[in-house]
């Protein structure tokens, strides 16, 4: 019997199910009958990528087009990479098993900064030239999208173009442009990218020159053609009820991070926490109606057989029809033994009625995110949550037999003092004593309060985008202050994030296109899987920056001037710089901003339109 190389390799790696495709629900087409082949790559493992809602949506939306075939690809694990390199085998797509380099498009979703090295590595494993400038007419068009493309500059040398904002319509449009130009004979890589840059929401970085000042800050972005926009406005789906939503899911054989139905309830957020990038970049708020959601949930249940539905949004409590939706869902989910989960609950909505409805029931704990330890600092970051609210919510959970509470915080927020840090410990102590004071709490079980603390990273498109990130030494000192305050407490566990990872994330979050050089150098050193603790190598990264003559502190730890040109000024995501400046001023004054539903704060995102939002309509 003949055994091909792929068979032998698959038999030698761990979890071959990551690479084989063939899952129930995958979409197969005749490659000779389609006009455009799109490989959708997720630059992390299969288990993480398969759980991503955006990929599920875009896979469906592209494959709905008869003449487009979208396939999937994920970062191979290191044992698989070794096999591919040993045998000089190019990375393939799941559905057809064809090499990625044979596709028309290779799309990457950029979900977090720490996956950038995996992007470069995957290009390399696909045997596609790493840099856009080195690609020929035969190579695929490499396109990026996703949350990180609100500042795509650090990776721009590797991409031919970016899709900015929501991709449902945009990706089909760019494929249509490609097909049309191929058919009418006007296609060349150069001509295509020029045409693409004229469409709304497409950014072709090579068509913009960047100049720098003597101090290293950016002087200006200049388009090299007159007929392309000076700034790229993001795309949004205006009416989410009308927008495509998958009716089936590719069902992974192997266990993934989220094996459940993800029901996207609305986009955007009315809150405006000042550290939160998603809360700004997903604006304006656009809701779906409960009728549509209930129908989508039923369809997905019948197509998947998943026994859990997760209501997905940035802050589920703020959905105006939450009560109607959960009531309607429970009419059939209970009998079908399907549980509902509501992540991202706010404390003020944590009521006994809601507690009755959700199945968190099986889990023994609840999670809240106060983010800061004192009211003063919570006002600075506009996290409208009081200690009273938190304790009330915890008591509801205790009444229902819960005994574990997880609290998320951030270290290193602007204006933070050691008293604010010790406030985190005090808040945890209050939760513990609330448990013992609650007559309904479980008698024979001690409470566990987990305090999980990450390091603040100033992100583009937030009111804190100009703030310096604290140095690693200072972040470590802050962690020690908290450790000392918490270590004496009973029933409180303290978890913290490594400041080194946060520092690197801080560099790339606000980086400019000069950082592409560092990513290339990092790739040459074999750096990858930076979001995996077992691979993250801070010292190697510092050596990379040194080798490239890049000062990481310039990006992460510098106080940016409100007047300087920011790397992400090339993008327009809706909210204006004036709004962000106003919010920053209010932060320093300790003044909170009401939610969008209470009062419009004039962020500017309403110019993009949107149905079932709470924004004032723009009349033109």
């Amino acid at each position, binding site marked *: *019997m*003949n*055994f091909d190389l792929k068979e*032998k390799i*698959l*038999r030698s790696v761990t979890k*071959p*199910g990551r690479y*084989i*495709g*063939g*899952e*129930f629900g995958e979409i197969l087409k005749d490659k000779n009958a389609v006009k455009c082949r799109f490989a959708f790559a997720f630059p992390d493992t299969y288990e993480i990528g398969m759980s991503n809602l955006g990929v599920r949506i875009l896979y469906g939306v592209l494959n709905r087009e008869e003449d487009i075939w979208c396939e999937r690809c994920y970062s191979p694990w290191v044992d698989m990479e070794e096999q591919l390199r040993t045998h000089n085998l190019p990375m393939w797509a799941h559905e057809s098993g064809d090499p990625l380099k044979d596709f028309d498009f290779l799309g990457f979703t950029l979900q977090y900064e720490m996956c950038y090295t995996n992007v470069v590595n995957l290009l390399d494993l696909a045997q596609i030239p790493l840099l856009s400038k080195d690609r020929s007419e035969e190579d695929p068009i490499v396109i990026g999208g996703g949350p990180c493309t609100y500042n795509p500059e650090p990776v721009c040398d590797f991409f031919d173009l970016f899709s900015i904002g929501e991709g449902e319509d945009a990706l089909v449009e760019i494929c249509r442009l490609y097909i049309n130009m191929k058919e009418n004979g006007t296609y060349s890589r150069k001509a295509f990218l020029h045409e693409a840059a004229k469409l709304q929401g497409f950014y072709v970085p090579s068509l913009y020159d960047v100049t720098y000042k003597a101090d290293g800050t950016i002087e200006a972005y200049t388009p090299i053609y007159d007929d392309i926009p000076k700034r790229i406005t993001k795309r949004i789906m205006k009416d989410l009820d009308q927008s495509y939503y998958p009716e089936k899911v590719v*069902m992974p*054989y*192997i*266990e993934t991070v989220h*094996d459940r139905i993800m029901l996207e309830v609305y986009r955007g957020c009315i809150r405006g926490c000042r550290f939160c990038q998603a809360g700004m970049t997903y604006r304006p708020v656009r809701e779906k109606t409960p009728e549509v959601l209930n129908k989508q949930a039923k369809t997905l*249940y*019948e*197509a*998947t*057989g*998943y*026994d859990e539905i997760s209501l997905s949004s940035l802050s589920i409590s703020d959905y105006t029809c939450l009560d109607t939706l959960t009531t309607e869902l429970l009419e059939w989910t209970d*009998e*079908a*033994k399907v549980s509902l989960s509501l992540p991202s609950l706010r404390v003020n909505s944590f009521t006994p009625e809601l507690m009755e409805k959700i199945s968190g029931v*099986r889990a023994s704990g609840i999670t809240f995110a106060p983010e800061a330890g004192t009211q003063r600092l919570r006002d600075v970051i506009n996290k409208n949550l009081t200690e009273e609210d938190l304790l009330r919510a915890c008591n509801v959970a205790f009444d229902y037999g819960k005994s574990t509470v997880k609290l998320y915080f951030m270290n290193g927020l602007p204006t933070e003092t050691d008293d604010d840090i010790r406030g985190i410990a005090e808040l945890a102590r209050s939760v513990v004593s609330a448990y013992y004071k609650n007559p309904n709490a479980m008698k024979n079980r001690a409470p566990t309060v987990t305090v999980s603390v990450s390091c603040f990273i100033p992100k583009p498109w937030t009111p804190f985008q100009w703030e310096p990130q604290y140095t690693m030494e200072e972040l470590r000192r802050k962690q020690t202050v908290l450790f000392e305050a918490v270590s004496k407490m009973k029933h409180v566990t303290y978890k913290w994030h490594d400041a080194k990872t946060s520092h690197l994330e801080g560099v790339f979050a606000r980086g400019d296109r000069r950082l592409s050089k560092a990513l290339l150098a990092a790739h040459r050193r074999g750096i990858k899987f930076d979001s995996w603790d077992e691979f993250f190598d801070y010292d190697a990264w510092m050596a990379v920056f040194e080798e490239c003559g890049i000062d990481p502190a310039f990006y992460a730890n510098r106080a940016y001037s409100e007047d300087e040109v920011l790397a992400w000024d090339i993008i327009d995501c809706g909210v204006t710089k004036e709004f962000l400046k106003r919010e920053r001023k209010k932060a320093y004054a300790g003044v909170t901003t009401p939610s969008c539903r209470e009062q419009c704060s004039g962020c500017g995102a309403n110019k993009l339109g949107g149905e079932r939002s709470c924004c004032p309509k723009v009349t033109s």
Partner: protein
Amino acid sequence: MLPKGNLLREPRAIRIKFAKTGKLRFISHLDLCRTLNSAFLRSGIPIWYSQGFNPRPKMVFALTVSVGAESVAEYLDIRITHEMSESEIAKRLQAAVTPDLAILEVYRPATKLQDVEYSEYAIYTEHPLDPDAVAAALKQPMMVMVHGKKGDKEKDITPQIISATVSGDRIDARLAAGQGNFLNPENFIKGLLAALDDPDCFYHICRTACYTADGTLFR
């Protein structure tokens, strides 16, 4: 998605014979269980749930094959709570899984899954093996490292080899596959290749049939 048939007085036992081939050979038994779990839920088959705090569709498998191996003789027992014909169950289940998981037969069992005593395997090797050398090797004790509850230990597996015939690059082997007396075909082929001084020869295993103690085909 509610069951349409009448409620049965007692849950009815149903046996499903299926094949696990193609890409599915790379899927572990645990993952196969999860795959079938969701397949039953989306199929609308009125499967009986285990009782207790966390009810689950109840599935009992006969023996399983290791990752990498194929099988055209896998057996799974379920129970149904509502009336549904065997052919309808077969149709619905097949529609809820990929062709690599072929539903071969659905019936009401007259035997217990534990009645399986032997399995037959077709094992394909990268190159043809010498039948005389194989016959000679099988006459000697075959010492193999075997995973056990008390850790790995070396064991002579020849008593568990019922028969083995070679024809070109195919070996047909009948091996013990009973409760407490099970020979993993991987161990058999590894032991054989080691005895032939050909340990790196690549191979592929497919279970072709299961038999009861008296040598009749299991059903």
